[in-house]
């Protein structure tokens, strides 16, 4: 596990959480969840990514299941 994959996947996790909780189809008044602490894991891009680093592909879903561990 390299530094690159740790950092990129930390951001990917926050990006997924933000979307699952904050975006997506909303139906009527059934939802309600406010999940406290979603941002607790994230200190910001500067804390996570080295300066010359760019986030590599973080495809999840079938690729993650079949291939390399995140």
């Amino acid at each position, binding site marked *: 596990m390299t530094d690159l994959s740790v950092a990129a996947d930390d*951001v990917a996790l926050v990006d997924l*959480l933000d*979307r699952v909780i904050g*975006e997506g*189809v*909303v139906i009527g008044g059934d939802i309600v969840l406010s999940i406290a602490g979603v941002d607790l894991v994230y200190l*910001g891009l500067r804390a996570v990514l080295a300066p010359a680093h*760019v986030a590599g592909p973080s495809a999840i879903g*079938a690729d993650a299941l079949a291939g390399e561990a995140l």
Partner: protein
Amino acid sequence: MITLYAVTWRADTPDLGEDELGVLADGDLAMVVGPAPATTSREDALAHGRIVEEVASAVDVLPIRYGTTATDTDEARSLLREHGPAWAARLQKVEGCAELAIRVAPSAADEVRAASGAEHLAQLVSRSRLLNAAESELGDLLTGRCRVVRRLAGHEELKLSCLVERAQVEPVRSELEEWGASRDDLMISVTGPWAPYSFVADGQDAGVAL
């Protein structure tokens, strides 16, 4: 109680790995459902997201927000009936596309302790200008490369979602990363491809339709 994961085309009926998930159909559409969790948590939200991504890796989906439940499968089917035409139209708009999540942040540390309230505000303004300028540049860069770009709420970072045809995902990612690498004053992160969470409602085309 059942939890609702995503809307798909009935014809696509995904082959689900999990025994506990099911697919309900009505008309042209189908919905992926499962047992509702006892409590909601970040961990459960993530697991929910992983399932949506698993389905999205195979077929077009409209992800449903975490925490959406129906009393039973009948109610879920009736939701499909009620929203069918609107959802079918949305599914067509996102057909063959995925979402890239972009974050842009200043690469310099926040200036050390502003000496006064005025200085602090000046720093905020300066950061905000930098990120707005970045948004504009990225808008130009992405014109013609992706279908829609939408800015999400965020103060310390610029957060964008872009709806991209699957074949364009890697080329767009590379261009974005090159842009980031060329800028000393900014850093960029591009994650995905994700299911099109940010593009499920009318009015979410209103970011920039390119």
